[in-house]
């Protein structure tokens, strides 16, 4: 027996609203894809799809961590810098072999996340400001490592690490599969483990959660560590893909990550959200970018106007569906 015998009208309405809430972004995505397919013949080409998926994969990895953070009612502005730092560390580490290239960024970026988490959980400082500071810090660290950006570390083309970013399965890059696996695991962690329940409880009602015995501090520390680690991983994958530790990437990426998470239906105030929604959010943003490119003749200045308008339409649409 899964439910009480007689769901009331209230409950049925609530259930229906929930379905729409969940699928608001999905509906928007399906519409966008369908229209793009019809209007732009090249949109649906397999090459374009592969590229879309690959570009989306890096963002998905970052946004996955951000989803957890946002569900606890927090925010992580440092992911863009940490992502760039992760890439530089991976490229630097690649001269010492595959393992160093992969582990070093995860550890360092995880540490930055850990410090974020500790500061937020233990001192009651606003996540926005703590992670804003680490945004600066990570960028500074990156500049130190690269001699004020003068050095770009290259990854030897024959290094096994490059394969991680460049390898494909029937044309689809490894990062796509890595992101997919992470999402499945992330979804399971969020919905099917005690830690996941704690994440929801922390963001839903922190005071109550404390009284219910939820380890708030530990949960927060964990989600920020996770977010840092995942941003580092995305950076490492990007470095492998680009074959170098590019220093200028990731600027403003935190806003993209936040936007996709929120578009995916996760409440910025915490307590509610899904991994699938985030994936759909990434899909939407990437399709919008892709469509702007398909239009082709668009003046570069109009491109951001169109992106802004699209973003607006999606959030308004979602909001209306939610009512």
């Amino acid at each position, binding site marked *: 027996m899964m439910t009480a015998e007689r769901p009331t009208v209230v409950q049925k309405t609530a259930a229906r609203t929930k379905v729409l809430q969940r699928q608001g972004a999905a509906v928007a995505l399906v519409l966008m894809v369908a229209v793009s397919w019809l209007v732009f013949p090249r949109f649906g080409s397999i090459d374009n799809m592969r590229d879309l998926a690959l570009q989306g994969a890096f963002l998905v990895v970052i946004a996955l961590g951000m989803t957890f953070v946002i569900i606890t009612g927090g925010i992580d502005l440092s992911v863009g810098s940490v992502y760039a730092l992760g890439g530089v560390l991976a490229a630097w580490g690649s001269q010492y072999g595959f393992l160093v290239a992969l582990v070093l960024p995860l550890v360092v970026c995880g540490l930055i996340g850990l410090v974020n988490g500790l*500061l937020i959980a233990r001192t*009651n400082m606003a996540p926005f*400001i703590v992670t804003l500071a680490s945004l600066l810090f990570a960028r*500074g660290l990156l500049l130190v490592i690269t001699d004020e950006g003068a050095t770009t570390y290259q990854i030897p083309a024959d290094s096994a690490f490059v394969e991680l970013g460049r390898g494909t399965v029937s044309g689809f890059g490894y990062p796509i599969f890595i992101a997919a696996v992470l999402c499945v695991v992330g979804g399971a962690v969020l919905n099917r483990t005690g830690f996941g329940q704690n994440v929801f409880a922390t963001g839903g009602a922190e005071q109550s959660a404390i009284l219910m015995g939820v380890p708030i501090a530990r949960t927060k520390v964990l989600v920020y560590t996770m977010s840092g680690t995942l941003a580092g991983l995305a950076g490492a994958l990007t470095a492998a893909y680009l074959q170098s530790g590019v220093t200028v990437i990731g600027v403003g990426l935190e806003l993209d990550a*936040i*936007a996709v998470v929120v578009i995916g239906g996760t409440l*910025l105030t915490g307590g509610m959200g899904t991994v699938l929604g985030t994936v759909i959010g990434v899909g939407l943003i990437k399709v919008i970018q892709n469509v702007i490119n398909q239009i082709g003749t668009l003046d570069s200045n109009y491109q951001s106007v169109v992106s*802004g308008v699209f*973003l607006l339409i999606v*959030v308004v649409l979602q909001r209306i569906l939610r009512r």
Partner: protein
Amino acid sequence: MTRTATAATRTAARTRWLQDNGVYVAVGVLLLFNVLFTANFLTVGNFTTQLVQAAPVLIVALGMALVIGTEGVDLSVGAVMAMAAAIIPLYLGAGPFMAIVMALVVGVLAGAFNGFLVARVGIQPIVATLALLVGGRGLALVIADGQLVQLHDPAFLALGTDSVAGVPISVLIAGLLALVVAALMNRTTFGRQVVAVGGNRKAATLAGLPVNRVLIGVYALSGALAAVAGVLATSRLGASDPADMGLLMELSAITAVVVGGTPLTGGKVRVLGTVFGVVLMQLVRATLIKHNLPDSIAQMIQAAIIIAAVYVARERR
């Protein structure tokens, strides 16, 4: 009610004092450091420079403080500055007054639009204003056809270069606006409604407060103030530069507000704290430049100072 002056309460009072006044202490410490260790710091010219550079940030931060007071945030301020900058050359032909009025109108409209999205449509502030952050600068570039425009109207340029009784006009305007916002927060119903909406929106609604009007008003004010900052910064630069005007201003303003002791959770606005938050961040930047630190170290030091300042001012559980 029993009141006791135990050691515990005295410590509590002391931390409370530091929490409330941390930003002033920090400004004092930094000033002292500079007086001791920075060449040519104690000059009128230098202080004028710091104030002039801080003025646009302060004006934006004042609006941001109000928005944050309602438990919101306005990411679009930099883009609004760019829009204001782009508007100016279009109307400068009709005189500087006309150009400034049009820039302000655009700022108010942009802000009211944000407010409408937040209040009426019910979109979360970060996302609602993110749309304008992305699109607004694009719009500014479209208006200006992407180009930086050199300005030559002497009356308009005077706004950025002239002084009254030795005080630069932009500093006067910023100071005046700070006073106005302080009065607004402390002496008017609107001010009280702002913190009430930020403190508990549901309760404010049930108390019959004009919640939507307050929200739209606050965002419109933020837009207007951003436009004022855009106008002043443009006249100082002597050029309309929509591509770079106000870039990352949203983060500077938010940092200053929070460092000044206004919590991001809303329900409280500290105007004087915001002023000092802006001054603190300005001094930090100036100190780092004057000591010729490389960008890498400068960024890390800024991070550390932000953390330290907010750590002191944090709300204890």
